[in-house]
C-alpha cells in the first residue's frame, strides 16, 4: 500500500508532509518552498497557475486570482459575510461560486486545484505516486464544511483517510516527543482565516481533546482588511481628489499586498515606511505606519477570541491554573499583541516552541503515521465541535449529540407517529448551540416512513453516527428486522428557497413604510435613552471628570435637547453622534467602576 501524506490546507498557505523513517518531514513544492500559497490564478486561456506563480498575479490580475477560498468552503450564499474579495463571489442556485470571466468555479474546485499541485509536487520530489491523505480542517468547521473539504481531496485523486482538526494536529506535533508526560494543554490557533481553541489532556500517548471552540470567520485576513481601510483613509486625507481611484481593483490588490507585508514586518519592527511612488499622476504617498497603529486595529479583532477561550475552558471544566501549557499556532500568533492578549486570557506566558506555520502540517503527517501503523504509541481522541440535533415541534432544537463528545460516537433516537395513520415525517438535522432551530446550521433533512397504524404505535429508530472525521451519517433501523439503511440527507438548499423569498417579501414591505417618520422615531428614542444615561453616569463618576470635559458634555446635552425641541432630524442625528463621541471617557470610567464593583462582589 502506498504511503499516506499529511496536508494542511490553509487559508493563506498549504503544506504537505510525509513520514520518513519514523519522523514527520515536510516536502518543498516545485518552487522550492514548504509553504505553498493557497492561491490559484485562472489565465484567460490555459491551465490555472497555483501557489507562488499565482500569488504574483494577485496584484496584476486580481479579478482572476482566487485566494482565501477556505473562507467560502461549505458556506451558503448569504453567509459569506463582510469579506471583500477582488474576485466576484456569486450565488448559483443556492451554491456559493466564484465567477472568472465567463466561467464559474466552486470553492471546492479551487481547493481541489491546490491539492492537485501539492500532490504532483510531492510525487515529483518523492519519485513515487501517492494517493492517500490526511487533510486538516479548522476544529470549528461544521459537517458541511468538512464534507466539502473531503470531496475536494477526493476530486484531487486522494483517498481521504482522515479529516483532522488543526489544533489537534498541532497538539500532536507538540506532544510527540513528550509521550511520557501527563499534562493539560490549550492550543490557540489563529490563522489567516479561522480561529480555533482546543483544550487537550495528554496521558501516556493518548491525546484526548476535552473541548474545542472557535470561529471559522476570524483571522489575519480581517486585520489586513482593516489595515487597508486605514491606509485608504490616510491617502484620501492627503489627496481627497483621487478618492474614486482607490476603488480600482488593481490598486486595491496592490494596497492589500502592501498592508499584508507591513503587518508581517511590524511583528519585528516598530515602524514600517509605506511607499506608493506613482499613486496617481505624479502624486506619491509616503506613510510611516507604527506598530501602535497596527495594534489599535488588531486589538478588537483579537479580543473576539477571548469569549471562545472562556467557553472552551468552561466546557473542559478547567481554569487557567489547571493548564500546563498554552501552545500558539497560526501565523498571526507571531504578532506581539496577540501573545500579550493570550497571556492575559490564560494568565501565563504562551509556549512558542512550535513553528506557527508548520505545526499543523507536521501533526497531520503524524496522524498519517498513526493510521498507517508507523507510529504505534499514540492515539488521538478528538471531539465534535458542535451539538447535533433535530428540529422538534415548535421550532426548537433537540440536542442528540452534545458538543465536545468524543468521536467516533453514535446516539439513537426513537420517532413515533404524531397522528393516526400518518405515513411519513420529515426530520430536519441541525448543528449548532442555539435554542431555536432556525438559528442553527441546517445540515439537511430526511424522511421517515411509518406503517399505517394508530397514533404513537409506529416506531422507527434513527441512529446518528459521527465518524472519526467529524462527519455525520444517519441510519434508519427497522425495529422488526433490525435492518439498517443509510439515509441521504436532502440538501438544505432546496428547503431554504422559500425562506429567502419570505425575507425578500418582508424587506419590500418595509421599504414602503414612511421612512422619515421612522427615522425620527428611532433617532429620538436614542436621544431619550442617552440623556438619562448621561445624567446617571455624571452622578456616579462625574467627580472624576475634568472641569472642561464636564462642560463639554453639558454643552453636548444641551444641543441634543435643542434639536429635540425643534424636531430637527439632521441636527438631532449629529447631536446624538457628538454626545456619543463626547462621553467615551465617561463610559470608560463607568466600566472601570463596574469592574471594580464586580471584583469586590467576587472577593466578598
Amino acid at each position, binding site marked *: 500500500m502506498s504511503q499516506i501524506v499529511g496536508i494542511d490546507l490553509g487559508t493563506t498557505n498549504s503544506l504537505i508532509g510525509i513520514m520518513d523513517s519514523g519522523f514527520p518531514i515536510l516536502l518543498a513544492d516545485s518552487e522550492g518552498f514548504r509553504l505553498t500559497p493557497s492561491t490559484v490564478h485562472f489565465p484567460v486561456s490555459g491551465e490555472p497557475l497555483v501557489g507562488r506563480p499565482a500569488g504574483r498575479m494577485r496584484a496584476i490580475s486580481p479579478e482572476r486570482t482566487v485566494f482565501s477560498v477556505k473562507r467560502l468552503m461549505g458556506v451558503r450564499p448569504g453567509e459569506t459575510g463582510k469579506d471583500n474579495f477582488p474576485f466576484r463571489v456569486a450565488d448559483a442556485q443556492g451554491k456559493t461560486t466564484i465567477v472568472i470571466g465567463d466561467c464559474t468555479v466552486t470553492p471546492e474546485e479551487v481547493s481541489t486545484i491546490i491539492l492537485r499541485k501539492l500532490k504532483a509536487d510531492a510525487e515529483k520530489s518523492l519519485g513515487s505516486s501517492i494517493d492517500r491523505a490526511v487533510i486538516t480542517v479548522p476544529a470549528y468547521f461544521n459537517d458541511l464544511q468538512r464534507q466539502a473539504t473531503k470531496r475536494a481531496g477526493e476530486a484531487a485523486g486522494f483517498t481521504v483517510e482522515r479529516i483532522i482538526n488543526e489544533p489537534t494536529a498541532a497538539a500532536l506535533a507538540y506532544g510527540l516527543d513528550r509521550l511520557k508526560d501527563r499534562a493539560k494543554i490549550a492550543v490557540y490557533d489563529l490563522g489567516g482565516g479561522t480561529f480555533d481553541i482546543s483544550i487537550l489532556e495528554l496521558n501516556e500517548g*493518548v491525546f484526548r481533546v476535552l473541548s474545542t471552540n472557535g470561529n471559522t470567520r476570524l483571522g489575519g485576513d480581517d486585520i489586513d482588511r482593516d489595515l487597508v481601510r486605514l491606509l485608504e483613509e490616510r491617502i484620501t486625507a492627503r489627496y481627497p481628489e483621487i478618492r474614486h481611484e482607490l476603488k480600482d481593483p488593481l490598486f486595491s490588490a496592490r494596497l492589500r499586498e502592501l498592508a499584508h507585508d507591513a503587518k508581517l514586518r511590524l511583528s519585528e519592527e516598530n515602524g514600517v515606511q509605506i511607499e506608493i511612488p506613482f499613486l496617481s499622476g505624479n502624486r506619491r504617498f509616503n506613510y510611516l505606519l507604527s506598530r501602535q497603529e497596527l495594534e489599535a486595529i488588531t486589538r478588537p479583532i483579537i479580543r473576539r477570541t477571548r*469569549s471562545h477561550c472562556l467557553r472552551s475552558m*468552561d466546557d473542559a471544566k478547567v481554569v487557567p491554573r489547571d493548564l500546563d501549557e498554552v501552545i500558539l499556532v497560526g501565523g498571526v500568533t507571531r504578532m506581539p499583541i496577540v501573545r500579550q492578549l493570550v497571556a492575559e486570557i490564560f494568565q501565563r506566558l504562551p509556549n512558542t516552541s512550535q513553528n506557527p506555520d508548520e505545526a499543523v502540517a507536521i501533526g497531520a503527517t503524524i496522524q498519517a503515521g498513526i*493510521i498507517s501503523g508507523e507510529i504505534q504509541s499514540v492515539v488521538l481522541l478528538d471531539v465534535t465541535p458542535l451539538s447535533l440535533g433535530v428540529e422538534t415541534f415548535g421550532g426548537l432544537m433537540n440536542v442528540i449529540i452534545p458538543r465536545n463528545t*468524543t468521536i*467516533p460516537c453514535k446516539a439513537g433516537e426513537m420517532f413515533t407517529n404524531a397522528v393516526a395513520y400518518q405515513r411519513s415525517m420529515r426530520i430536519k438535522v441541525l448543528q449548532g448551540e442555539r435554542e431555536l432551530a432556525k438559528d442553527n446550521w441546517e445540515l439537511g433533512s430526511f424522511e421517515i416512513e411509518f406503517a399505517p397504524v394508530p397514533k404513537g404505535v409506529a416506531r422507527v429508530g434513527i441512529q446518528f453516527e459521527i465518524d*472519526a472525521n467529524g462527519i455525520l451519517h444517519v441510519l434508519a433501523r427497522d425495529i422488526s428486522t433490525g435492518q439498517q439503511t443509510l439515509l441521504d440527507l436532502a440538501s438544505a438548499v432546496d428547503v431554504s428557497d422559500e425562506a429567502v423569498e419570505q425575507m425578500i417579501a418582508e424587506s419590500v414591505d418595509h421599504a414602503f413604510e414612511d421612512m422619515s417618520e421612522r427615522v425620527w422615531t428611532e433617532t429620538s428614542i436614542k436621544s431619550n435613552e442617552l440623556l438619562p444615561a448621561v445624567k446617571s453616569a455624571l452622578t456616579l463618576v462625574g467627580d472624576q471628570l475634568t472641569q472642561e470635559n464636564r462642560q463639554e458634555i453639558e454643552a453636548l446635552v444641551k444641543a441634543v435637547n435643542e434639536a429635540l425641541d425643534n424636531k430637527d432630524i439632521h441636527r438631532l442625528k449629529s447631536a446624538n453622534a457628538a454626545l456619543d463621541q463626547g*462621553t467615551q471617557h465617561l463610559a470608560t470610567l463607568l466600566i472601570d467602576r*463596574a469592574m471594580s464593583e464586580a471584583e469586590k462582589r467576587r472577593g466578598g
Partner: protein
Amino acid sequence: MIDFFAVFGLEPRPVIDVDGLGDLFANKSKTSHPDRAVDGDFATLNKAFNTLRDPASRIFHLLALSGEEPQPKAASAGVSAWFGEVATGLQQFDRMFQPLSQETSSLLRAIKIREAQSILADLEKISEGLTYEKDGLLKAMAEIDAEWPSDRAADLDSLAQIACDLRFLEKWLAQISERRLRLASIAP
C-alpha cells in the same frame, strides 16, 4: 443491555473515581480506537465513559441494571423551590442582554453592562445556592454508596430522586454559566 461498569472492569455502584475513569478510558482507547483496531467497539467504550462520568446518568444506568425501571420523577420539593428564582433571574438577564449586545453608544453600553452585572451577581448567588444543593445530593449519594450493595428499595428510590434532582440542578447551573460567558464575551 450492556453493563457499562463491566466495560471498565468496575463494580456497579453509585460512586466511582471519575479521574481514574478518565485514565481507564484513555488506556482502553489505545486498543479499541478505530486507528488502532479494526474490530474494537470504540463507540460502546465512548458511550460507557460518557454515561459513567456523569453522576445522574450513572445512577440511571445503575438502576436500569438492577432491573428497576427508573420512573421519570419530578424534582423534589427542595429543588423545585429554586425554579422560580432561577427562571426570573435568567429572564431578567436576557431582557437586559439582548439590547446590550446591539448597543453602539459606549455610554449606554457602559450603563447596561453595569446593570447586567448586577443581575448576574444575583444569578451568581443563586448559582452558589444550587451548588450547595448539589453538594448535599452528592453527599447523600456517598452515604448510600458507603452501605453498598444495598437491596433496600428505599435506597434505590432515593437514588432515583437524587439523579432526577441533579439533572435539574445541572441544567440550571449550565444556564447561569452560559449567561456569565455571554457577559464576559462583551465586557472588556
